[in-house]
């Protein structure tokens, strides 16, 4: 059974009198353990698709099954729970809480999951260690480099052991060397069995993925699986 199944997903935005078709009847399945890169020009609908897959947004029409459950007819609170349990997000702008240190940022999803303090601390420390930031865990985001911030974000995304890791241009705000480090981290996560979807417009980055999905004007233009590099 596929982990993600989108059927004829459409997402429209109403802007003044204008209707913007961000996605037009997109159908797509992704299996557990896949590593997918989504590519396409700016404004083609990549982020819209990610937000829908990540349950941050709901489609105008179409159905979405995640892990067998129909997400399209869940209410806000159920969606929040799905995001907490099933989804790990990594954003281009890191989106860490500025006033909290790295450790607390990583702990946050566990707090919302209702995990008790001791267990929470243990799991968060483990996640921080897995991204190699144990010695920086008491630092606030503004005391960390871009690459380190993104590592914290990855640790936060992974801490709840989600079904999918979603990354929307995770290297967009990093220099190419740091970007490569983050991609190496993703590579490693993929090898250990995580399902990963990465949005990027850099071919270099996309090469890390097994499967490349190209989007244009809200439609899937191509969907190809590459040989192992």
């Amino acid at each position, binding site marked *: 059974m596929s982990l993600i199944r989108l059927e004829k997903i459409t997402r429209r935005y109403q802007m003044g009198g204008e209707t913007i078709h961000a996605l037009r009847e997109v159908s797509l399945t992704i299996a557990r353990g896949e590593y997918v890169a989504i590519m396409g020009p700016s404004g083609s609908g990549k982020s819209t698709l990610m937000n829908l897959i990540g349950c941050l*947004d709901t489609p105008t029409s179409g159905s979405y099954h995640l892990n067998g459950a129909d997400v399209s007819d869940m209410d806000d609170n159920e969606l929040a729970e799905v995001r907490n349990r099933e989804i790990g997000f990594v954003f281009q702008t890191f989106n860490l809480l500025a006033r909290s240190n790295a450790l607390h940022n990583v702990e*946050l999803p566990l707090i919302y999951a209702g995990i008790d303090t001791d267990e929470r601390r243990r799991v968060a420390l483990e996640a921080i260690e897995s991204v190699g930031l144990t010695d920086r865990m008491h630092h606030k985001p503004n005391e960390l480099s871009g690459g380190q911030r993104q590592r914290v974000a990855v640790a936060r995304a992974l801490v709840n052991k989600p079904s999918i890791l979603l990354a929307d241009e995770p290297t967009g705000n990093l220099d190419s060397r740091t970007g490569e480090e983050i991609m190496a981290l993703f590579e490693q996560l993929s090898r250990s069995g995580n399902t990963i979807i990465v949005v990027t417009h850099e071919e270099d980055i996309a090469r890390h993925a097994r499967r490349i999905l190209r989007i244009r004007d809200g439609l899937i233009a191509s969907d190809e699986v590459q040989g192992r590099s």
Partner: protein
Amino acid sequence: MTLLAEIREGLRIALTAIRANKLRSCLTTLGVIIGILTVTLMGTAIEGLNRSFMQSISSIGADVLYAQRQDWIIRSHEEWLTMRKRRPVTVSQAESILRQVEFAKAISPIAQRGGKIQYQDRDTLSPAIVGTTDQYAISAGVSLNAGRFITSSESEGGRPVCVLGATVATNLFKSESAIGARVKIAGRNFDVVGVLEPVGGLFGEGGVDSQIVIPLNQFLTLLDNNPDVSLQVKVASGEGLEEAREELRAIMRKVRQVKPSDPDDFSINQQDQIVSAFRQVAGTIAAVGLFITGLSLFVGGIGIMNIMFVSVAERTKEIGIRKAIGAKHRTILIQFLIEAAAICVLGGLIGLALAWPITLIMAKVMPSTLSPTIVCLALVVAALTGIISGFLPAWRAARMNPVDALRSE
């Protein structure tokens, strides 16, 4: 438990936010500080007034009835006019009533008028020279500081003796002993045989403390041979106050020959009347006072609402992040409600800290203390103010769409 963890996280966020915006938080709490300060002081003052009144009123025994011409509490000019027209209670009526009452532990006739008392070259004015009998000691519940009360034979008309209220005694004798001294009242010599224990309070000052008690017969011959007499009746324990009152009323009507169809031409007063009249007035004062001070708290609440809207707007991105990683509607709502409540409770604590020394000063004029009840109440009110005024902003935050929130800068 998720909710508990969310509340703890909410508190953490609130404290971080308050610390991050120290100046702003302080300015915001100012309204709440003033609100809580005034409400607390008002509450303490009202409580103090009540307590001081209750202490005073206890000097008028709860089980004592006063049969007399007029009502203690006159509610209108008309009422006052009808009472003015009533016949006085004469000495012979009083004596007749006295003989018929059976339920009393003590009953004393009281005739009163103001007058001067002299000792050597000193003198003092007393508002009340009281002509009564030995029974007065029991019915008025007075106790003696020194000496003794007038005896029954003295009240029958024996030798001229008097008992002084505490204030009168200090005015006239300073620190000297009054017992055995010869004073002059209405041109006649009296021997001081006793000085009363000071009663204090509202009713003591104007009552027993400034009285000069002399035998009724002396009063009649020296001051007024046809006074308006009141009867002070201390009901025996075991007798119902209501029944006693009714019985006394029946006797009064009979003695004063009131026709069955006519209303009473006298009044039977008791402590209760004053208490309920006081309650009425005090209740109104309390309601008006708390309403006015409550307004300042309301203004403080509006300030909180305002700043919470700002806080929510500033932290739109943070709300988006929290929602993206699993914060529910409820989580965000609780977070901002706690923040608003925390700011208000902080203001409440500061308000109480300021109120405390002021209540110490107030304590010099009335028995007022910042009671634990008022402290708890003030903090609860502060927290409620926060929760109520924070609700709209928190609701707006909770309802934000996560994608839009994340997009904001």
